[in-house]
């Protein structure tokens, strides 16, 4: 009985380790091809457009409403202790250190990450990836590297846009609707936000970018058979990316605090 249990646990642990190793090797191969020419700049621009430019509308919407909700809730709390003047810094720090990078990453995962996993998955099941391999061309170089590099560029930029729009969303609620003075909102922010806050936010966005694209590309690249396989891969990519964003956010947050 005990032996059977130990065998099952061991075999489960080995399979998990093997899968993790496989994923890690996939990441290493992708990183290797980033630095080995020929570089595919046109494909990179295409991916920046797909992951970045096409996510702008949703980022602007999400960012502004996040700032607005944040301002409403924080104002309500601050009023109780008579510190309404701290609304600006509270909204800005929450956005820059936490909510900007995390929520923009979750938004991009939902919009672009799922689409990328599905696109690569469909290329796998329709033998387009095999066709590249058969032509002696690396599918990693053509399909994965441009997406990864685009993510490294786009995630911090979108997080920054999310922060700025969120701060103006908070401004709209705090100043225009709740009657706080514009000077107080911004001047207090200037006193409390330091460069380190912005750096931490950018590090987080960068980490999330690599994580999301790694998971989504891996899941698509090694999708199962048929429509069901692609659907499963896409779901797994989004769920795993979202969980990892939050877990790594905590780890990075604890590290930088």
């Amino acid at each position, binding site marked *: 009985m005990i032996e059977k249990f130990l065998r099952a646990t061991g075999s489960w642990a080995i399979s998990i380790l093997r899968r993790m190793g496989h994923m890690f090797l996939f990441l290493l191969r992708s990183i290797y091809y980033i630095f080995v020419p020929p570089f595919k700049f046109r494909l990179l621009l295409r991916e920046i457009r797909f992951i970045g430019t096409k996510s702008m509308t949703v980022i602007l919407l999400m960012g502004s409403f996040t700032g607005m909700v944040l301002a409403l809730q924080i104002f309500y709390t601050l009023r109780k202790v008579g510190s309404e003047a701290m609304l600006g810094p509270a909204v800005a720090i929450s956005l820059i250190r936490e909510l900007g990078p995390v929520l923009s990453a979750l938004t991009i995962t939902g919009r672009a990450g799922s689409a990328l996993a599905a696109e690569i998955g469909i290329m796998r099941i*329709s*033998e*387009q990836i*095999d*066709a590249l*391999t*058969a*032509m*002696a*061309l690396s599918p990693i170089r053509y399909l994965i590297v441009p997406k990864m590099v685009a993510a490294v560029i786009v995630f911090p930029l979108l997080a920054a846009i999310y922060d700025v729009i969120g701060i103006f969303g908070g401004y709209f609620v705090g100043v225009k609707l709740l009657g706080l003075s514009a000077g107080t909102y911004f001047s207090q922010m200037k006193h409390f936000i330091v460069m380190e806050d912005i750096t931490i936010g950018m590090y987080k966005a960068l980490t999330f970018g690599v994580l999301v694209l790694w998971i989504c590309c891996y899941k698509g690249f090694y999708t199962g058979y048929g429509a069901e396989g692609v659907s499963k891969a896409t779901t797994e990519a989004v769920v795993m990316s979202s969980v990892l964003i939050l877990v790594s956010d905590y780890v990075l947050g604890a590290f930088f605090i």
Partner: protein
Amino acid sequence: MIKIADLHRSFGGQTVLRGVSLSVADKELIAIIGESGGGKSVLLRHLIGLLKPDRGTVQVEGEDITTLTGRKLDRIREKFGVVFQGGALFDSFTVYDNIAFPLKEKTKLPKQEIHERVEEALEDVGLKGMESKYPAEISGGMKKRVALARALITEPKIVLFDEPTTGLDPIMLHAIHKLITDTHRKYGFTGVMISHDIPEIFHVADRIAFLYRGVIELVGTPREIRTSSDPVVRQFIRGSLRGPIEIV
């Protein structure tokens, strides 16, 4: 040109290839026939290193590709052109870009020469004027022809065809077969083709190999296959429900 020896391959406990041995001569067009799900595509994928065997060797021009990886394997792959079952065209590219892709990526030919070769290839497969169409906008038969043009554009020594006529109407089937024989004559490649098209395949291939239960049951000229007394082969080419082949 290609020599397969004692090739074994299993997937999760299910044995698909049980010791396939087959030789393909230079410039020969050989067709592999056999039951659906019998391992023909698996065998073809071993020829270009898309799958690794559990045991056995695949020699291409004397070099065993089963032990090769990375650039060494890519060097062998450059000798191949492959027509995949569904065409495997890049759906974000136009017909023109699909055909030009191997030349753009694998050669340093000037743009004008690439253009001329793509136009010639399009003419060969009867698709002139379809350059700007996307794969989603063309028929199944056209896709197969584009795939054939893409496979031949680099003038490979060996061309693999994975069921190039599946799902096509009889007229298109004949058109594709004629295209394969015409291009085979024109370019002089060594061809390995998987097919279910009996008896049409007898007019296309130089030799036929019959894969049954993971081994090559019989290899011979179309005439030898047609007149074979082997009950399995006879049942298969007649499409009879009765015989040693069990219908699952």
